[in-house]
């Protein structure tokens, strides 16, 4: 499998603000890659650097085998971009914008154009100024999908869509993945990334903090266990890998590092388990774990 996007030690600052502080990111060809992080983490800056809109201060970037800054024009024929904040020309209709962007990219498929307009129930005759935020976003999404390109760079593409349209958007992403397209999906909607992405990269303050498939990330994380026991179990709280232990009568609740799961289950079964639920970490928990600041961590007694 070849690499669609390869970023090493990327740095970019705006004045005194360090937007990217040594970012690494790898996106394999043919995968849907979730690019996760809270507002201001550097997601949009990374996409703009990949598009050659911004110039990197330092670091290496390869995009579809080329240099994003030097080969921008040639590379852009092979990709499409949906910006996070879609701003349309007030007196151009949605249809005109879709055609214009398609032509600038080197042509668009009229059949796909028609199909996506229908799927997203978008009226192409409306003037740009009259669209709602969600509909502006649909214009950008249709323009990107209608071009039939190798790589899609999507910056929080569903932030203005209603749940119904979000569902349709997810279908489209899955379809594109079936067709072997590579998709980099920046998002802070974790359920979306969980539903769509093969792999995710989590960034914080301009640096990569975690990357891998969801299974891999979960493996390195903790499972939450809630159990009702018939007898007392000693030493559970002090077992290696056990955190956040609370006991309320016969009710026990804890989180455990997945590597230590077996020993915890062994000890629990000795105490006589009456009921047990075990929840693998949601992406949300992974996410929060990375974003809990050091101050928060020290404030919570172990």
């Amino acid at each position, binding site marked *: 499998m070849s690499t669609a996007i390869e970023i090493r030690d990327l740095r970019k600052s705006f004045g005194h603000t360090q937007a990217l502080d040594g970012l690494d990111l790898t996106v394999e060809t043919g995968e849907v890659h979730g690019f996760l992080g809270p507002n201001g983490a550097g997601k949009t800056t990374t996409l703009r650097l990949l*598009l050659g809109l911004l110039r990197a201060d330092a670091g290496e970037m390869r995009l579809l085998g080329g240099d994003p800054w030097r080969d921008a024009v040639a590379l852009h024929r092979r990709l499409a971009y949906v910006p996070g904040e879609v701003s349309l020309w007030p007196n151009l209709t949605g249809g005109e914008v879709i*055609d214009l962007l398609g032509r600038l990219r*080197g042509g668009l498929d009229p059949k796909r154009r028609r199909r996506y307009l229908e799927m997203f129930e978008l009226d192409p005759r409306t003037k740009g100024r009259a669209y709602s935020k969600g509909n502006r976003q649909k214009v950008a999404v249709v323009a990107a999908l209608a071009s039939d390109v190798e790589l899609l760079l999507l910056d929080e593409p569903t932030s203005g869509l209603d749940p119904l349209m979000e569902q349709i958007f997810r279908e489209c992403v899955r379809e594109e993945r079936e067709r072997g397209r590579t998709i980099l999906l920046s998002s802070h909607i974790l359920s979306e990334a969980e539903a769509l992405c093969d792999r995710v990269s989590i960034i914080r303050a301009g640096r990569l903090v975690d990357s891998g498939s969801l299974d891999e990330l979960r493996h390195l994380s903790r499972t939450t266990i809630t159990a009702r026991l018939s007898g007392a179990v000693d030493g559970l709280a002090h077992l290696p890998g056990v955190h956040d232990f609370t006991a309320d009568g016969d009710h026990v609740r804890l989180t455990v590092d997945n590597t230590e799961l077996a020993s915890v289950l062994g000890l629990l079964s000795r105490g006589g388990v009456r009921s047990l639920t075990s929840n693998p970490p949601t992406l949300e928990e992974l996410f929060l774990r990375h974003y809990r600041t050091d101050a928060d961590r020290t404030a919570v007694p172990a």
Partner: protein
Amino acid sequence: MSTLTGTGALIRLALRRDRIRLPVWTAVFTAVTASSAAATTAVYPTTGDQQAAVDSINSVPALVALYGPVYAPTLGATSVFKLTAFGAALIALLMIFTAVRHTRAEEEAGRRELLGSAVTGRFAGLAAGVVVTSVSSLVLGFFSGAGLAAAGLPVAGSLAFGLGWAGAGLVFGGVAAVTAQLTKSARAASGLAVVALLAAYFLRAVADSAGPRWLSWASPIGWTQQVRPYAGDVWWVLVVPLLVTAALLVVAVALARVRDIDAGLLPDRAGPAHAGRSLRGAGGLAWRLNRANLAAWLAGYVLIGLVLGGLAGNVGKMLDSDGARALITALGGTQALENAFLAAEFSMAGVITAAYAITALVHLRGEERALRVEPLLATALDRRRLLAGYLLLAAVAPVVLLAALGVTAGLAYGIRTGSPGAEVTRLVGAALAQLPAVWVLAGLAAALFGFLARAVAFAWVALTAFLLLGEFGTLLKLDAWVLDLSPFTHSPKLPGASVQAAPLLWLTALGVVLVAAGVVAFRRRDVVG
């Protein structure tokens, strides 16, 4: 909740945003009035000098058309003769942009909605815009008048002058409050108000030079003149702009009452579902976005050309004093006078055309700020091609505009002299001779766009400085090298003068170098919102 709840907060917000802009303009206008008064005192120290100056100024219709007459042979009236109408128009322009900036522009950007959801009343935005515009008009007028008084002119006349200026600011702030309700885009709202301003200025120009005199009362700029500072100080005239402003505000509120937030009164129609053949590349887009605006400018130039050509034919005939007639004959006859009139007007047209060229680059910067350049450059579009569309507009549209001015002025003037063909050729050449200086300003705007995108509006400061140098530089007895800083100083005074190719060539070369530098810099910089 009252419809005005939150107005105070919005006023504070507007003043916070304009905390540099408005004081700087106030300082500029105050400095111009004070230095102009000081310079005039030095040039015409005695009453006899002043009488002579008034006679000679009032006998040149070109000057009277451009600035208005001198109403009395006093030092004050002579000092402010160039400032009264012209400065009132500049202040009106400033207030139009200020009013639109705090009303329609806020709505268009979606910020009004953000505030509207907080505790602000329906008309709070409009009210805040109007208050800020009115107060700044009054403050600016007061300080400008104080500048004149400080230079030693009578206090009463200085106050009358300042209030006259404030009146123009008030009225056009009101006009902009109305146009801001009519259109959805801030650009169109300002454009509509500027058209009204141009019409007002031309009404008074016609009234002052060709007559009838009463026509001046139909123009808000005319009211500023009719206050006649230092020439009788007709205070009651100041009531007229106040009443008209009040009426305009009533209209604005009535319009605001019947429309929704973010909507204009002119409804949106559905457009084409597919892009036409012309909307192909970046150039096609630039043309599409600017063609309506350019058409409006072109219509204005055609109109102005016809008026100027018509007036030029009258210039010689309107001299009523025998002394002036003898003087003119000695200077080379009415032909020379008519040429001087056209040359003065054409050099002003050069400055205005440079303003058009600057707007083209400022527009591109606006597109960039509105995040509309980003999706274009994310396609297979070279940055040079994107910029080329706007550079073409900045360089070629002035050719079209000035040619149109020359053709129409030539026709109108030639019909009177009986040789339209020859006059068209001659005046087209004279108008086009302004182009190299226009291209320098276009180049400056392009270079700013490339190097310091956020500072592209500095081109306006440069243009204003060049305009003031041209208008007041000689009067202020500035050194030649200071005057030479303005490219317009080097434009030939056509028709009627000899032309040297050298300045035209190096002005053009300077424009080309600046454009090239801007293109190179734009390729290397970040695209920033």
